[in-house]
Every structure is written in C-alpha cells, then in structure tokens.
C-alpha cells in the first residue's frame, strides 16, 4: 500500500510517497537518489547503511520508510555545512581512515551518533560503540584515531 510521509531529509522538509513494505535504505538510494548510504548486507550486520534519525544511528536496511514520519533524517551527504566538512569527516580525511571508502559513510554517521551520546568517549567506549560496523579493508585503527581526534575538535559543541 502506498502512503505519503513527511519528514526532514538532510535539513529540508520532504514529502514522499512510499510503499509500506519499503525500507528506508532503498527509499534514500532510489526515490531520494542519495547514494552515499550503502547496501552491504541487508540484515543489519555491517552498518554501511547507517543514517541518523533524530540523532540516533539507524540501520536503514532494517527500518521501514514510514518510521521516519515527522522525524529528522541526516545522511552522509547532509553532514557538511556550507560545504565545510563535519569535524568527523575532516578527521577521517586527515587520518586517512578509509581505503575503498564503502564502509566510510556508515562509519562516520555512526561515530557522530556515538559522539552525540558521549562527546568524550574513551578508546574502549569508541570500540564498543563502533563494534557493529564492519570494514573489510581494515581501517579500524585509523578510524579510532580519527574519532578520538574529532571528539577533541568538537569540544564546546559547535557541531553537536
């Protein structure tokens, strides 16, 4: 069944017709044509499809599209402000915390969600908070460094 939903998508009010059996992942990737959010497994195991829904990291492959009715959805494309990278994005670049880049959007979004909840996490807390995000290229060590340095950068809450 089709229904119309309204929500904020990357800071813009959005109205969209969706099927009630459609997941948020494919609505974002097809109807909204934002392809930074990736399909990696479809069952919630890899984290590459993560976006923020009301600041909560959310696996879009497991989330029905109509769940975001009235909510605020932010994808990797919506993080930069006036073209300036988010501190977590910047830290990923500076620490070269990516190789193929396929897991990267999910990693960055999940990290930002983690920093919302816990602005100054310890290394162990980052490891725990990122546990369900997979990177086959093996960038984990650099991702940890990047998140730690971004958390320092973000002290004072400018971007939170």
């Amino acid at each position, binding site marked *: 069944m089709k229904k119309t939903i309204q929500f904020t998508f990357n800071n813009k009010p959005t109205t969209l017709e969706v099927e009630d059996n459609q997941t948020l992942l494919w609505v974002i990737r097809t109807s909204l044509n934002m392809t930074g959010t990736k399909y*990696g497994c479809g069952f919630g195991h890899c984290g590459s499809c993560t976006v923020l829904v009301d600041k909560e990291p959310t696996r879009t492959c497991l989330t029905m599209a109509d769940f975001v009715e009235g909510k605020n959805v932010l994808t990797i*494309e919506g993080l930069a402000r006036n073209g300036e990278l988010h501190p977590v994005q910047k830290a990923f670049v500076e620490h*070269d915390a990516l190789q193929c880049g396929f897991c990267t959007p999910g990693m960055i979004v999940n990290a930002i969600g983690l920093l919302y909840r816990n602005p100054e996490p310890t290394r162990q807390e980052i490891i725990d908070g990122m546990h369900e995000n*997979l990177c086959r290229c093996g960038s*984990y060590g650099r991702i940890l460094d990047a998140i730690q340095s971004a958390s320092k950068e973000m002290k004072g809450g400018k971007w939170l």
Partner: protein
Amino acid sequence: MKEARINELYFRDFDKPLSRDRRDFLKKLGNGIIIIFSIGELGILNGCSFGKGGEEDDFNAYLRIKEDGRVDCFTGKIEMGQGVITSIAQVLAEELDVPLSQVDMIMGDTEICPYDAGTWGSMTTRFFDPVLRAAAAEARMVLIELAAEHLKVDKEQLKAAEGVVFLTSDPKKKVDYATLTKGKKIVRKPSGEAHQKTPDEFRIIGKPVISLDAEIKVRGVAKYSGDIRLPGMKYARIKRPPSHGSKLVSMDGSAIEGMEGVELFQDGDFIFVLHDNPENAGQAIARVKAEWEVPESKANDQTIFDYIKKTATDAEVFEEGGNLETGRSQADVVVEEEYFDGYKAHASIETHTATAEFKDGKLTMWASSQTPFGTRQAISDTFKIPLDKVHMKQIFLGGGFGGKIYNQQAIEAARIAIMTQKPVQLIWTRQEEFMYDMFRSAAVMKAMSGVDKNGKMTMWEYDIYCAGSRGCNLFYEVPNNRTRTLNKEGLHPFGTGAWRAPGNSTTTFARESHIDITAHRAGIDPVEFRLNNMKEPRMKRTLELAAKTFGWEPGVTPSGRGVGVALGFDAGTYVAIIAQVEVDKNTGKVQPVRIVCAQDMGQVVNPHGAAIQTEGGITMGLGYALSEDVVFDWGKVNTSNFDDYEITRFATTPVIEAVFIDDMNSAPQGGGEPAIICVGGAIANAVFDACGARVFQVPITPERILAALEI
C-alpha cells in the same frame, strides 16, 4: 620548432599508419600534449599484459597535458582502496614536475585508458609506474623544448618545477605549462632520451600525502557501480539455485502475476525479474517457484580435507635440492605434521554490482571489476559483440582483494540488458556474494623437517595440496629439500580463485607453524632458529628489523608471553611479522595485542600508503587467522551473511606497527598484498607461546584451542 613540424615528426616516427580508429581515439582525447606508446615495443608491461599482440597493446595514451595546464593521467588500473589513485598520481607529478593537485586520474575506462590486464598481484607499482615515468619524463622534455622556443633561450638553460618552466639563472623568466600547451596538439612517443629522476631528486615520491579520493569518499559522493542512475533503469534479480551444479527442472511464475510493474524473463536456467525498485524485484523473485535437481554431496567443510588428500593426485615438484634420505639420516630430530585451511571468502563490503545499457548495438557498463579490459573481452566473446562496442566506464570499487577479478555479475547484467533492451542494474545480495564468490581454496599441507644437534636444518619436505606455490621458494638454508604441489582440475564444489596474495597465506601459515614446532623441539628460540637457518640475506635483515622494532627477547616456547613470529615472501617483498596475543585458557578466546610488521619492498613510493596497506592486510588477515570459514555441503554454501562469517572487527584489531627497510635505490615491489601472508603463522605461533596449544588449522578458533589444550 613549429607545432606542425612536431606533429609531422611524430607521424613519421610512428611505425604503422594510423587506422581510423586511432585518429578517432586521438580526436576523443582533444588538444594538449599527449604521450603515447606501444607496450609491445617497450616490453615493460609484458608482465601484466597477457602478451597478446595486435591493436590492444599497440597504442596507448598515458598522459595528456591539457590547455589549462592540468594533467590527465590515463591508466587501466582501478581504485579499490589500495591507493593507486594517489600513488600513480604521485609518480606522474614527480616526473612531470607538476603539483599533485593538478593531476586528474582517468582510470579503467576501456575507451581511453591503456590496455591493462587487471589490478591484482601487487603489480601496479612494479609494472605500471616505470612506463608512466618514462611518459612523464618525455612530456617534461617536450615542455622544456616548447619553453625554449617561447623564451628564446637554449633548452639546456631551463628547468621545470611545479608546472612552470624557468631559466635556471633567472627564475623570474618563466612560462607555465598552460601557456605552452594552449592551442596545441602534440602527440609523442617516449624517445628514451628524456632524463628520469634519480631517487635523490624526488620531491613527491616517498612523501606522505593524503589520498586524493578521501574527500569525495567522506562526503558520500564517490560513485560506485550501484550508484549509477540511468533514465528508465530497472533493477534486476536473478533466481538462484540452492546449490552449485544444480539443473532447473521446472519454473512457476504464476505467483507474481498481478504484481505491479514486475516483468519476468527466462532463458533456459537463467530466470530473472525486473522492476523500478530493487526491493520489489527482490520480493518478486522470492515468489517465483523453481525446482532444481541438486548434485549429490561428495564433501562438506568437515570432510573436505580427506577429500582433497584423496583427490588431488596431480603432483608436481616445485623446488628440489640434495637428497631427502640423506637429510633425514643426518637429523637429530624429525618433525612431521599436517596443516589445514578451509575456504575463505573475499567478503568485500560492496557486493558484485554492474549497471549496463545496451543501445544502438553498443554496451556501456559500470561494473565493480578489477579487470575492466578482461570484462570487456568476456562480454564481447559471450555475446558476439565487437570489442569496440563494449565500453567499461570508470568507477570506484568497494574492495576487491582478488574477488573482483571474476565478473559473473557483469556477464549477467550484460545478458539482461541485451535481452530486455533496457538499462539495468544488478546488485548481488550478500547471500549471492557468498554463494558466487571465487573462494580462497581449502588446502592441506604436509610438512616434514629434520634438524641436527647444532640446530641446523638438514631436511625439508613440503607437499602442498590445492594452495599453489606462490612465495614458496625456500628462503631457509636446507641442503636436502623438496616442495611439491598437488592439485586436481575441477576438484572443488564451487569456484575458487585469487584471494589477496593467492595461496600464500595458507602455505606461509603451515611452513611457519612447522618451523616453530621444529625450533621448539630443538629447544631453540624461534627467531634465533630462523636466523641460524637463513639463506636469503634480505629476509634476514627484515627479520632483524622486526625483532628490533618489537623488542624481541629470546626464549623457548611456550614462554607464556604470547609472542610469535612468521616470515614470508610475496610479490617481490620480504615480510616478517611478530605478533603478541592474550589467550583466555577457559574460553579459548584470543585477543591480539600488538603486531609488528617489517617489510623489505625495495623503494617505497608512498610510505604512508604502504603503511595503510600493511595495516589493512594485517587486519584482514586476522579474520582468516581467527574466525573466517565458509560452511558448506558440497555445492550448497551455507554461509550467507556476516553473522555467520566473522571478519575482523574493531575489538579484534591490535596495535599495528609497520616498518620498512629503507632502500630507495632498489626497484619498488608489491605492497598491497604481502603483509597478510604472515598473519596466520604469527598468530598460531603466538597462541602456542601463550598457552601451549598448537592448532594446525586456520581459523584458530576457541574450540580448536580448547581441544588442543586438552591433549
């Protein structure tokens, strides 16, 4: 020299008349200074072009300086995370004397990039870079000639730097590349006369730089195959059999009748649906009923090793010296063991994907492929389309590791596009990815070693079933030795293929485990034992660097410290890894704590990139060492997603230190693969050192450790 004159010279230089296609090709490239050459003539690329003659490897453009002074670098290589987009640009910027930011990388486009056999085997640095350097040096020479004319001075008085040619005696007298290139079309082949820089002249090669593609990747705008959108594009899903080798008995598509927008197609066993929406396509294909005849099972993940030993009977001697009997009689201690490795998946986070359009007899495709030219050939052969009517476009890959050398998805997407005459996208599900992956082969290794009273090895006998011989030249000094490979065509129930440093992780695990056991039996420290029996000086200095960096203290295993060493050789590079682990004796759980990896890879073009590749390889390697295993019953692959195929996670990743033997004067060697080969062996040896559990099979799971402890 006038432009017309240079062009005239060039055309005279050219050994064969240009065919129309070539003119067409040059027209496509537009104006500027273009450096071309034939691979056959230079012979440098022979290692990675399959040596096929004719047009394919006859005529290639490597770079073009555009009229705005920016430089296009053309390469048939693709970027899948190994960083060649950056390292190749560095090489070009260095030799051409332009800022790195002025280089645009054009990769893997089969219409404009040089023919390339594929991005694998750690060959880019070894085989592509030298050609590109020659081309860039030639271009710089052309620019200096043009500048001499422009500034009306002798070319000997000029120098180039940062995209500008200037008078050495008066740097204010200068002209930039854009000005020199404006309105010109100059095509040149390398004359071999251009000066190439020596390592002491390098300003860019060897300097750490941030990856050129990092920013677009963190913004989420880098395009992968599945991110392409074509007008009217449909998403395809294919009906898969339950098992490899199945035959279709019957198909019933009645359940999807009335599903809006779904189209069902069948061509023999090939059944698929199309829809505007990928999820609807998925729901539809699930409702299509099909019955299959499934082949009888001959082995599963438990029984495969016996099956391999029984079946792989085609033996070939790989290396041999002395006499094994003599070696055995001289030995004080003889050690004989068997080692096992199950099938491993590539498990890139991006699944195999292809987007294809068939229009006016021409197929255009964006495919996640490590071999765009090979894919083009395969499509041309399969569908009888002329080569120049198949166009593979540039795209990023979400990981490859050897798994995207094979392009079943591209053939499938081409078939669908041609059959339906519609633009289509085919994204394999994670389950399809596990089913149709070309796995790293399961393997058995039988090793026998002998050591005398002085701790010298007297014999080494090594039989490798199904893992090949890559990196298996013995770097230990053993007078009596024999290494054999044993195989049988068609042995495996499904496809197997190249997995990051093919076979070498498997054989290195077995050899280095066995060397450790031998050292243990001889009561000698494992590092000392290896140094004592070392033939290869470069391997020796690599081990010494690893031991020094790690702070290795001699001891006899198991020392309880949880430290282990392994050595290996791959793609021209010597690797030594020392690992430290903690083992929980109650649960068998292993926590890697620290890994030091020393490598001698000759000249390190991009040390920063090499460190990243090394860390990546080691992290990936911990997966096969500790947890990855494909579960199957003959052609039925039961592993289907990341919840039953455990790859390395954040928590498993230890502190990793990558160090390199600094050797700017020797040829650069492979960097993307070698580190991974030593991970299994080093972890196995560290586990033994920690708790005395010797595990003869990777992955070294908690169950296997507990079982070994009970013995």
